[in-house]
């Protein structure tokens, strides 16, 4: 699923703090795209806008040809949970849910029957090396393990797009590399569009395309 951003404007603090100005970009389907840039320049904001978590002041975002910015909040949310998987820097697992419940959360929110989802979740947990810990709660896991669960959660619904916001930012370099490889492999193997925001130079090896946020624009290369 292609991601097309067209003439996008976004500012915070009632327009006093502009982040993007007339930004246009395209993330190709099935490719791993990496977004680089200094802190505070809008990398996370860009992912939020693509995911429909935030809305642009102007311009449009098309996901697989569907204009998501014009949708109402509920429609955007439904579109997100069916088509987008999100991996956060702080893992963001729900502490009161077990690993299995965290992974199946998105499907449950979508009202899907639990049978097939459970099987897929079990397979994903096994794939990330935590197959025997599905009944545990997140607070028993290390940071790397939590991020693996978050990765499994992002993939469980088989979304066309995966957005990862500095997924290695809270991990040591060794674990970070492992997670990055896992993420890129899983995305590539499944033909997903992966947009990865990161500071990690090691990630460049996995990237099909690299973008840099600069001067309120997204510059290729």
């Amino acid at each position, binding site marked *: 699923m292609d991601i097309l951003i067209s003439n996008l404007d976004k500012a915070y603090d009632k327009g006093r703090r502009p982040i993007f100005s007339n930004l246009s970009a395209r993330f190709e389907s099935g490719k791993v795209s990496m977004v680089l840039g200094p802190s505070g320049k809008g990398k*996370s*904001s860009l992912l*939020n806008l693509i*995911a429909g*978590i*935030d809305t642009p002041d102007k311009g449009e975002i098309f996901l697989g040809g569907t204009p998501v910015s014009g949708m109402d*909040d*509920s429609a955007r*949310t*439904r579109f*997100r*949970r*069916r088509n987008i998987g*999100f991996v*956060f820097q702080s893992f*963001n697992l*729900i*502490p*009161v*849910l077990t690993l299995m*419940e965290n992974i199946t*959360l*998105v*499907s*449950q*929110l*979508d*009202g*899907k*029957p*639990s049978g097939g989802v459970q099987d897929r979740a079990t397979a994903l947990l096994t794939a990330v090396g935590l197959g025997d810990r599905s009944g545990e709660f997140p*607070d028993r896991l290390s940071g790397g393990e939590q991020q693996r669960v978050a990765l499994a*959660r992002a993939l469980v619904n088989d979304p066309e797009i995966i957005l990862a916001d500095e997924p290695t930012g809270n991990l040591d370099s060794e674990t970070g590399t492992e997670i990055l490889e896992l993420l890129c492999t899983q995305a590539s193997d499944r033909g997903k569009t992966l947009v990865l925001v990161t500071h990690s130079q090691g990630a460049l090896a996995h990237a099909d395309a690299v973008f840099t946020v600069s001067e309120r624009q997204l510059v290729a290369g």
Partner: protein
Amino acid sequence: MRLGPVIRTCFRSSRSHPLRTGLLIFGIALGVAGVVAIDIARTSVSKSFELSTAALTAQATHQVLGHDFSLPQSLFVKIRTQAGIHKSAPVISRTVKAQELGDGSLTLMGIDPFSEGEFRPLGLVQGMSSEKLRQTLLEGQGVILSGSVARAHGLASGDTLTLVLGEETMPVAIGALVETGNRMTDGLILADIGLAQMLMAMKDRITRIDLILETPAQADRVRAMLGSGQVLVETGQRNQTIRGLSGSFETSLSAFSILVLFMGIFLIYNTVSFSVARRRTLTGIFRALGATQKDIFLAVIAEVLVYALVGSALGLGMGILLGKGAVQVVCATVSDMYFTLTVSQTHILAATLVKGALVGIGAALASALAPALNAAQTPPVTLMQASFFEGRMTRLIPALAVSGLVLMVGALVLFRLDRGGMGLVFSGVFMIFGGASLLAPALILALARSLDRLAGTGPGRIMAKMGIRNLRRSLSRTSVLIASLMVVISVYIGIDTMTHSFRQSLITWVDGNIGGDVHVASLDDRHPALAPGLVDRVTSLPGVAEVSAYNIHRSFSRQSGEVHVFSYVIDTSKKEWIWLDPAAGDGTGEQTARLLDQGWMVVSEIFARQNGLVPESAPQGGMTVVMDTLGGRRTFRVAGIFRDFFMGGGRAVVSRKAMKTFWGKDEITAMQVFLFPDFGNESGAIAKTMDRIRAVSDDPGRLHLRSGPGIKSSILAVFDNTFLITTALQVLTALVALTGIINSVMALILERSRELGILRACGAEPFQVRTLVLWECGAAGFMAGLLSLPLGLLLSWVLVDVVNFRAFGWTYDVRMAPATLVMALGFSTLAALGAGWIPAVKAAKIPVARALRTE
């Protein structure tokens, strides 16, 4: 570090959440308002009582009374001339109503203008000398009324006042208006004694003689003048006896005041501790930057103190408004049940306001103490980790549960202490609530686990599971919320079960004692005797199965003031015995009748209490009681004590023979007519029977006929009115509950905004987030409701068996109303859902991107 920046930041943090800060202030205000309102009601009744009795007794130190509240006027002359007591005044006194003055009761007081100078300040009649006043009374120009009362009803001197005595009406002219500068005379209608005797058909008799006696010798001289059945009593002692009755009611108001106070403290603790917990991270940052423990402690206390001052001021205003309403209700109750308060005045003591303010400020500071110390003493690094507090809470649960159980057992021991005063009882109530609150976290944990399992798995269940688990995760905060809701709901259950039990017992008593289909009495209560032969004629009427005829005689007793002595021709009442003398066997009609014929009496529970008859310590030889009779003081053996809700106070039942011998009364004053069931069930049977009774009466115009169902409903109406104050308390309870939940849930939502953001980012729609919050609130409400059921029933037992018994002398069984329990559970859940609605809507609208940035 200087304190300024810390305090300033605390206030700024509160200012950024105006709704929560407002709710905290409102919570303090509600607690204060409840305490102030009940205290105003209590002190106002007290003051109204003083004013009502002061107008009647005025300067008199003693009174001469007849055993039947009537004396020959000649006795006054004898006391004045032969005993030489010049400070004496004959008085006629009777409670009446006046059509022009609404429903309020007044005292029609017949006085002798020449004797009054020493007793009542009649010289204060506006624009009128004492001489002129005497003229007004003596020349029969009419009665004297309080100027303020007259003006309030658009009356002036010369207008007509229609007095209502029982069922009779009598027009009298208003001769003058009195202006005393206080409200003492508001409940009085003054008349010349001659006019009063005429109005009340008392011929040459008077109600009492007021005396100012300066030496014991004078008292002895008066006693020497008295005939049998006439007694000299000290005014203070008599007032105290009457006061004792309504004092019991006021004691029960104190019990309610304690309940309100406890709820108020709990609510304040709930809101303050949430407020402090919410700022743990901020506190941690300050500590890390160099703020000392003392700085943090003082900053928290200073902030709470400011809110406590504002909340208390608001609460005082609300309390005064609520109190004014409560005074009317409570005065009406005291008038209905104990003593006619002819003056009803809202009396606000400075002490009440100080007490209210101290409760608000003290409770807020006490509530802030633990969280403030906690925040100050915890290392900065752990202050920034909510999980540290939850871990500590989990470790504390067993110790809290054990302490709770110890407190509750201690309270039960206190209730069982025979000689425990009301102070101990109230301490026990506090301990019960405190114990239950300490026990709550353990129970909440267990309940949450069970509900989690019950929630099962599958689409749609995830929000329920999350909501329930969130309660467990934030147990240090949610347990305070659930415990405070539990306390509030248990108060609702306790009061409702108490009133339900009382109402059911009252219905049983009414059915057993005054369950006749038609009640017959004299319309003219100055001549209460029914015509001789009427009983036989009514008995032979078609459809009449049975007639219970009796004499009710209002008698004076030194020990208990007014006593109603009953003697039955046939006693059809079904008595529930509290105690029986062994000679009375199991208290069947024949056994007690036999003892009554031998000169024994059976007495009501209240009479027994007034006369110090305690079944548990009944002497070997049986219990006896001394009564003032026509022939002087006489000792009666007591055959039994029965449960009674007769509203006229204590009641004694004697045989017809004893009534004639000792009180000189032989006539029949009332009868209950029982119809055959198949006839009684026909429509119009009661009206038809009333017509037939009138037809066989020589003087049908004098008959006062009332239907049994009508009497029953009017008694229940008085009862319901009595408990209006408790209804008001329940409304207050609901308000307290709602405020507490809204405040707490708002705080929890604020704390979890990042988590809600994650949920939304993962694909939860706004309605799903709303559902999550509502599940959490609903589960909290349900758990609080569930936990409140045993606590509420325990409280109802305390109110019925301990408070009511020690305060009123009434005993009745606790009757559990399943509807009350279901409603409590439903109310608790729905209230929590209702209160959670605003936070749920807010949570659903949370800006996702911003929430995700929140750490």
